[in-house]
């Protein structure tokens, strides 16, 4: 019984980590964004754009060479993913920070736009590839992204548990830890948090509010975009199918709340949510109960939301100016 459970766990945890990694990228990116007071509901769309940009880069590179160069095979999808998500983030920043449009409306529109753009480009690439099935793949690039650490197989179960993933999984953790340290312990982090808490105060203290909002939203968007890239080139094995990314962007937004705006906590939150996302595959539930199991992450989020507002600890509340535009010459 115990051995059985242990084995089940050893199989389940890697799945949870792999499912959780796109969520972790998304959540870390959104936390950095929200810490400057920008509620970017466009994150699901930006992750889509990141995914399709990376895939587009990979597709054209793979189809233009005979043998894929390991360095270029990684760099080209990576750079095109970052460029795509930067572009989408800049749209959001320009509308909400420069033109001071409503953040919720802009974010939701950006998500619709991002998903649509992803499916449009995805559909076009499927057509170009001449595939008979509704997907295209970049298997050579995917192999590079999925390369395990060389010593993983020699370490048995431990290796399987900790070292059997593509490099983006580790990058996600590193980014979350670095973000946590930067936010908490550096001057940039202090000023960034001040912008999100009280932009008028930050402005009076000589901090360039607009610059910080642009900076954090774009960095955050690019990190979130990596989540989309990971999902397509690594998790899905380099196969793109339209709408394949699903609702993971929204889950990432839920993790932001779950982790009370702390990147370090979002590592745990992402893996937990990732696990809950695939739990129905690993336990015996009747078919009709699967949606109930899939609801779990959202139920957990609601419970966390209720309990943080019940605790009334100011440090656990969302950034005070979240969702608000900042006008300086407002009297």
């Amino acid at each position: 019984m115990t051995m059985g459970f242990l084995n089940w766990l050893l199989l389940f945890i890697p799945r949870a980590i792999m499912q959780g990694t796109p969520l972790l990228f998304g959540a870390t990116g959104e936390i950095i964004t929200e810490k400057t007071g920008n509620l970017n509901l466009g994150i699901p769309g930006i992750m889509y754009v990141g995914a399709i940009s990376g895939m587009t880069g990979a597709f054209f590179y793979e189809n233009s060479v005979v043998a894929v160069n390991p360095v270029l095979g990684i760099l080209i999808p990576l750079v095109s993913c970052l460029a795509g998500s930067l572009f989408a983030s800049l749209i959001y920043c320009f509308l909400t920070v420069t033109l001071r449009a409503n953040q919720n409306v802009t974010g939701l529109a950006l998500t619709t736009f991002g998903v649509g753009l992803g499916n449009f480009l995805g559909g076009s690439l499927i057509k170009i590839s001449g595939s008979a099935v509704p997907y295209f793949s970049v298997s050579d690039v995917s192999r590079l992204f999925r390369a395990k650490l060389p010593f993983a197989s020699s370490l048995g179960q431990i290796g399987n548990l900790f070292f059997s993933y593509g490099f983006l999984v580790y990058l996600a953790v590193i980014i979350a830890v670095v973000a946590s340290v930067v936010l908490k312990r550096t001057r940039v982090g202090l000023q960034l948090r001040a912008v999100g808490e009280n932009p008028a105060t930050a402005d009076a203290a000589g901090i360039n509010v607009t610059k910080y909002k642009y900076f954090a939203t774009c960095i955050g968007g690019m990190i979130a975009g990596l989540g989309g890239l990971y999902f397509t080139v690594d998790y899905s094995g380099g196969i793109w199918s339209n709408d394949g990314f699903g609702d993971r962007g929204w889950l990432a937004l839920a993790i932001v709340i779950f982790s009370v705006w702390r990147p370090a906590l979002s590592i745990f939150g992402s893996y937990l949510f990732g696990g809950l996302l695939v739990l129905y595959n690993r336990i015996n539930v009747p078919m009709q109960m699967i949606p109930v199991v899939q609801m779990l992450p959202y139920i957990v989020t609601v419970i966390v939301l209720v309990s943080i507002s019940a605790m009334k600890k100011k440090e656990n509340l969302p950034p005070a100016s979240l969702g608000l535009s900042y006008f300086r010459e407002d009297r």
Partner: protein
Amino acid sequence: MRNITKKFGEKVVANKNVNLDVKYGEILALLGENGSGKTTLMNMLSGIYHPDEGEIFVNGEHATINSPNDAFGYKIGMIHQHFKLVDIFTAAENIVLGINDGEKYDIKDAAAKVSVISEKYGFDIKPAKKIYNMSVSEKQTVEIIKVLYRGADILILDEPTAVLTPQETEKLFAVLRRMRDDGKSVIIITHKLNEVLEVSDRVAILRKGEHIATVNTSDATEASLTEMMVGKKVTLNIDRSEPVNVTPRLVVRNISETNQDGVRILKDVSFTANAGEILGIAGIAGSGQRELLESIAGLGRLNSGEIIYHRPKKDLPVSFFHKTYAQVVRMAKEGKFHYEDGTPVNFDGMSRVRIRKLVNDGKILFNEDEIMNLRDHTPLEIRELGVRLSFVPEDRLGMGLVGSMDLTDNMMLRSYRHGKWVFVDRDNPKQLAEKIVSDLDVVTPGVGTPVRRLSGGNVQKVLVGREISAAPKVLMAAYPVRGLDINSSYTIYNLLNRQKEIGTAVIFVGEDLDVLLGLCDRIMVISSGEITGIVDARTATKEEIGLMMTGRKRVVENEQTTE
């Protein structure tokens, strides 16, 4: 500052050709009414706004100040009226916020430097304390250290004493003098004459955005400054009439209230508000004034105590409007009525028709005021009981009026239940709005303008006008002149005085002690939810009230009226 002009939009000129000099080692007071452009002028010095015209010179050199950072570069620092602090940060974090000196960011180092500055000027502050745990005076201290930490030589303080008790003000002035002696320039923006005379070396007076004069404080008097400030001589004394026919109207007995966090906001509060009298309530902001008024208005949740309303009925006719026939007969039996000539009423042996006729003809009069307990009634129930209670809350556009609705609609907030079938009556409220606009000189394009677009003084006139139009027996006003200029303030004082003269019990929560002493008949002082005393406004002194506000002095209850 030379020929400074700043406009907001096309019409609003905040500053016009202002010339101003500040020297090192002096305290300069910038004096002017609300809206005279003091803060705007200083915001240009501190880089929040840019002047449209004119130049600024620092140490004789032309200075371009486009951002607060530029201002710090010229060693200029401003302490804003509304504190610019991040609530969830510690004092030290707030102090170092925005500093990019190239050194390694180390909050412990910063905390040590803060302690050094505190010692030098005599501040009392814990660098690791979170802002949301601080009192107003502590927050102000953080603001001052913030600019000193940046090495500012020119400090601008915007209305620094508005939120302080007299004792805290004294402490602040001592600090300012120490800074002056240290060779720094201190500019204090204020509209309080006594403070100008007490602390400043020179006074610059602004009026309607223009610089009127700069004089040495030693050559100035309260009267001369006021004249320059308002342009015409305004009597500082409020016309206070002697109270007549003083009878208890509202008796509050031992009420206590605990908020959601379990903190007691009101502790065993007892007092009487009399008809024909203005009862002032003095206290540091947030001492329970708001909760006290709200609990009387039916918005609070009291733990104990009672709120007794004396409905004015004495010598007024009995009617069947609020009483049934059986109630009237029972009360007559208990000997509660009399005839016009004073003889007691006895219904024994009279027919039902006869009794009904006597009552309907208004021949039967009450002996005494009717007594009712308002505790645990909602505002609507209180109104339906026939209690005429008006409330001017401190949060004008939050609790009093709806900013995005026009004047007429705001009048309807009090009368929306009247009207035919499902339709509300808009005609009467519209007439009322027009009457208030003409009676109180409200400056507005029309009664169809959203209230939010009016200036603070006009918003307040609309609110007070609406509340007074209900012909209240009890009128409660919380900070009704906050943010208003002198002329608008006097309009409000006169309205309150007028209400008192027609027999309303007026409760006035104020912050300016001079006004409280000049307007009210009695002043009740509240400190941390406790009544520290009720004093006669004609004989009390500011020092006495200030001490009571901080709870350091108590006046044993000495009610002039008995129940």
